[in-house]
């Protein structure tokens, strides 16, 4: 047993040294981060839950389920599902197109030619844990789409509310 504790001591020293180097390097590095970050979800006006990485000042506005429902029935609206093809095929908001965010560069040239720049776009993904909808909106904003909204409640809220869905390749 004492042999075992003899092995643990240097291991603890390594962790301690790593902690000192890490914290010092982080202080000096221009890319350093705060020792304690804000990693809790933010709750905005209208009780909309957004992920920690959402930036109120620069990101597209988030919408609630009620907003999404009323937009869904208005003309010139396109919903875009940012999840994988597998998830989309299993079930998506009826009428939504699929543009898998993680492979934006290969999907965008196939999907976006059918999406007019002046249309109102609602991006969504799994649920408020998910950031694919946020990143999709950021990318589309760079690609010239200015009327973007993010429905963070996503697929989960939509299904729970019993709203129109579709499965398979059909939008």
């Amino acid at each position, binding site marked *: 047993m004492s042999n075992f504790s003899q092995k643990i001591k240097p291991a603890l020293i390594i962790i301690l040294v790593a902690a000192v180097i890490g914290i010092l390097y982080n202080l000096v590095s221009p890319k350093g981060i705060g020792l*304690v970050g804000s990693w809790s979800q933010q709750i905005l006006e209208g009780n909309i839950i957004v992920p920690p990485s959402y930036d109120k000042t620069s990101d597209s506005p988030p919408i609630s389920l009620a907003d999404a429902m009323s937009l869904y029935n208005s003309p010139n609206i396109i919903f875009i599902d940012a999840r994988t093809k597998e998830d989309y095929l299993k079930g998506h908001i009826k009428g939504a197109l699929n543009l898998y965010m993680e492979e934006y560069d290969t999907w965008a040239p196939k999907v976006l030619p059918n999406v007019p720049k002046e249309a109102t776009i609602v991006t969504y993904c799994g649920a408020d844990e998910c950031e694919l909808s946020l990143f999709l909106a950021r990318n589309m904003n760079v690609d010239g789409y200015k009327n973007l909204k993010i429905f963070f409640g996503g697929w989960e809220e939509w299904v729970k509310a019993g709203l129109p869905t579709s499965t398979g390749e059909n939008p």
Partner: protein
Amino acid sequence: MRSVCSVPIYRDVSFKVEKRMKFLKNILLSKHLALLFRLFLGILFIYASVDKILHPAAFAKIVYNFHILPGFLINLFAIILPWVEFLLGVFLVLGIALDSVALLASTLLGVFIIALGVNLIRGLDINCGCFSTAPATKSSVSKRLIEDVIFLAMSLQVWKCHQGFLTLKNLFYKP
């Protein structure tokens, strides 16, 4: 350490099989293989740490995506862990305090395996931090899980069987 690396072969198997098994055992538990594993794991740990050290914010996001640590520990963990990996890698390659270093490496890999396993069961996509049932996601997590189990086996082999072979300590002080 000796006892594990010199398990007696059962007497009731035929001589030929016994010889082959002994040969296989000698290779699997040899200090030469331990050296090979040590260098491989060392370089792997250094390689894995560099990207995390250079991009702490991105790594913190990955730690957050695992949904295991409480929020206030995420950044601290993301700042310290890459340096633990870096030091482990350097010490593994040079062969400094190998008993402790291999033990720490094994513990770390064990923790990674548990973290990945928990999220595989929960169905959490650690790439985007969202829950997904897509098979593509599941297979990428299980692939990483299998890799880590192999690395853990290597690390345990180093821990048990290195015998101080070609370590910095033994180069300078002949035992």
